[in-house]
């Protein structure tokens, strides 16, 4: 496809959940699979916005006259989520994270932030609106194809999760409602799918670099705005996999071209991306008539001194370069840089132990042991890694004994006790064991011999050292 002839203009809207409590209630932001404690059934009605006009998207939803059923879990829901109580003040940590993100995206920060109500009456917000506020404007990021402008950085509440629906009703779960979301909107500065992908990946990387965003399925959502010559903007909602962007964009271009060729109007609508990368009509494009102030909360004055004193996190991309330089391979560099355990990794690097050993221990050995023992909800504490590598640095254990130590630790023994069993064997003692074993098993080939000896010394000496001693003794 020749995208410049088609006149492709694309912008991105990225929504990322923050790993803090809920934005306007002091509730946990953990999702749940439990049975709900209560069900509520509500209706929503279309309202007039600030300009006196009823938002067209709102009219569309009300015309369906659905019942909205809300699943309430007492563990993560308060009267604020059930729309029975005014909101509390904004979550300080979420605000500080968005300030950090604004700085990483080279944005200007709004001096007085007013929290707004954005009318949403598809039932996904119990109140009939989403609380949202504009924090940053006029930023940019660098990409391989030039600067991409960041139009706005917004902090808002996530909506409730759609659980099921039938002809007359939609059921939502309130656990997700109110989780802080950062919405980043770019200008339509991208002109081909690869560039969209690169930009989305870069913004995702910047967000993850803060170490304060939620990870996993559904925690980041991308919308792509697409227009081609002859049409106006169409919003594609819910692009889950960045890798599918090429297909999704091409499908949409073809759809728009088909419509235009039949002299139909294109644009002004929101479409939902389906799992087969095609899309279906969701609702008309909302207008600014849907926004008005959240009267239950005061405006927030930005403290620029505080913002300027925020220590910016190292970007994951810089981290990867740093790890490559100290000899980690590409895959491990990327894995550890993206991992939430990169802090502890950096700390252990100070012991001067081989970085690859540290990275594989943290990333894969731990997983293997958990898999072997069938544990998934538990993780090795950071202090454990610090301790075990300082023991190694002080030659109190050998590196080959690490997996065995980890396994016993997982089973509940204390590290101090375990380590005693893995003291390295002195060279003279090792020589004695090797020579005795050779005597008893003179007919065994060298490989099997090493295996037998290693079994006997339970990792308390290095395999290479054993091989060398065997070589010396059998010369």
């Amino acid at each position, binding site marked *: 496809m020749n995208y410049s002839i088609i006149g492709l203009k694309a912008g991105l809207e990225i929504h990322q959940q923050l790993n803090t409590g809920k934005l306007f209630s002091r509730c946990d932001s953990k999702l749940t699979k439990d049975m709900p404690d209560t069900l509520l059934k509500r209706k929503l009605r279309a309202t007039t916005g600030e300009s006196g006009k009823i938002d067209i998207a709102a009219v569309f939803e009300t015309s369906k006259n659905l019942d909205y059923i809300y699943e309430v879990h007492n563990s993560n829901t308060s009267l604020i989520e059930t729309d029975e109580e005014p909101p509390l003040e904004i979550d300080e940590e979420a605000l500080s994270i968005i300030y950090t993100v604004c700085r990483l995206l080279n944005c200007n920060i709004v001096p007085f932030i*007013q929290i707004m109500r954005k009318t949403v009456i598809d039932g996904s917000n119990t109140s009939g609106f989403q609380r949202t506020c504009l924090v940053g404007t006029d930023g940019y990021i660098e990409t391989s194809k030039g600067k991409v402008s960041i139009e706005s950085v917004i902090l808002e509440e996530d909506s409730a999760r759609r659980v099921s629906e039938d002809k007359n009703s939609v059921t939502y779960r309130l656990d997700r409602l109110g989780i802080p979301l950062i919405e980043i909107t770019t200008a339509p500065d991208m002109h081909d799918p690869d560039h969209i992908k690169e930009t989305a990946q870069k913004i995702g990387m910047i967000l993850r670099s803060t170490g304060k965003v939620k990870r996993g399925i559904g925690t980041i959502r991308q919308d792509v705005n697409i227009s081609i010559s002859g049409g106006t903007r169409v919003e594609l909602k819910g692009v889950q996999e960045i890798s599918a962007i090429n297909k999704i964009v091409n499908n949409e271009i073809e759809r728009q071209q088909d419509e235009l060729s039949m002299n139909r109007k294109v644009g002004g609508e929101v479409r939902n991306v389906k799992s087969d990368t095609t899309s279906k009509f969701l609702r008309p494009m909302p207008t600014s008539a849907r926004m008005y102030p959240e009267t239950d909360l005061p405006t927030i004055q930005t403290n620029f001194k505080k913002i300027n004193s925020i220590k910016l996190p190292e970007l994951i991309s810089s981290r990867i370069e740093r790890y490559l330089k100290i000899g980690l391979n590409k895959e491990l560099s990327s894995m550890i840089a993206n991992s939430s355990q990169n802090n502890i990794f950096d700390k252990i690097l100070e012991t001067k132990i081989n970085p690859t050993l540290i990275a594989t221990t943290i990333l894969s050995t731990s997983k293997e042991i958990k898999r072997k023992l069938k544990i998934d909800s538990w993780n090795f504490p950071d202090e454990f890694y610090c301790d075990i590598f300082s023991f190694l640095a002080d030659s109190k254990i050998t590196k080959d004994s690490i997996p065995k130590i980890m396994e016993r630790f997982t089973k509940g023994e204390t590290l101090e006790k375990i380590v005693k069993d893995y003291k390295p064997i002195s060279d003279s003692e090792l020589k004695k064991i090797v020579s005795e074993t050779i005597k008893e098993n003179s007919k065994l080939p060298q490989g099997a011999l090493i295996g037998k000896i290693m079994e006997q010394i339970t990792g308390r000496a290095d395999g290479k050292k054993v091989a060398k001693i065997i070589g010396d003794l059998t010369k």
Partner: protein
Amino acid sequence: MSNIGNKVKIKYFGSEYEGIILESSNKDIHLLKLVNGYNIGLPKKGSKVKVLGKANIGLKLDSAPILKNKSLPNISLISTGGTIASHIDYKTGAVHPMTKPRELLGKIPELKKIANISVSEPMSIFSEEMNSEHWSKIAGFVARELNKDDIRGVVVTHGTDTLHYTSAALSFALEGLSKPVAIVGGQRSSDRGSFDGGMNLICGVHYAASDIAEVATVLHGTSSDDYCIANRGTKVKKLHTSKRDAFRPINTVPLAKIYANGKLEKHSNFELRHSGKVKVKSKFEKKVALIKYSPGMSPDILKFYEEHKGIIIEGTGLGHVATPWIESLSKLIKKGIFVGMTSQANYGRVDPYVYSTGRALANHGVVYLEDMLPETAYVKLSWVLGQTNNIEKVRHLMVSNIRGEYSKKSNPNSFLY
């Protein structure tokens, strides 16, 4: 010169913002509505404003005359203010009363299919501003509407904070009530999709068209939008600051459940619609007080009330105050001041005989008001003293069951209904 309402471009340090300037309570900032709908504030100091023109904002609602449908009942709506009749003032961002009650009907188009509704507006205030003069005025409006032959019932819209005081006041002030009077409020404002006053008003209109000739509050029965409960005006209290179903029956059960489709389920006995005319007795005495006793509270506070005509005490438990109060209260009673005892326990009946303090208080002339709510007792005393100054008559009226304010028997289902 004020730039409010102007379309502008503002340069503030590195950024340029385009939008409309709104009124702000903070005089040092420009509150700007951006083209994308977001409001932001920019310090006036450091802002360079370029005016682009005049903007056109403001609330315009359907206020076209509504045609009468002869097959529907005629209901009179009396709007007094409060959340239910509030909308957002987009200039200041504050919640303000609607200027035209018709705006409310424009927001709830379903009403046109239920009744022909005429609207009057004696006042537009939040309910914390209400006093007995307002009660009198509302009672006058209600009676005038009720006595029109073609009017089937009346709906009063009211702020929720003191709605239950007004419902009690109307209960006493309207004598020989022959038609329904619903008092309706809302806990969520009408600007939101989740406006609860919409269903409350619909159910209130159904109530007003029903055969229940009582003053009742009509608001959500649960946190869901499933039905409203009609509670007798003298037996109801706001038990939650913000929930939809805050209005609960006390020491009784609701008169009825009312669904938005008009279905009405009877839950207790009530007066039936009849053809008599309603008399207004809307004089209320102002020199009355409701005093909540708290542990350690000095009886000196009672000195302030020596010029009052009556006081209601919200005592502890079964109706007690500390011993030093007995003498002070006795003094007031001897001066001819009525002293009534209720309980701060919310539910249940006061009883002077269980403990010696109660017996002493009763012996000194404190009148125990059984299971009457303190708020209702306060309103009733104000009303009774508005009708007579004869202390014997006052005492007699205060213990008589005039508007269902007393329950003869305590219903086992009524607690935490």
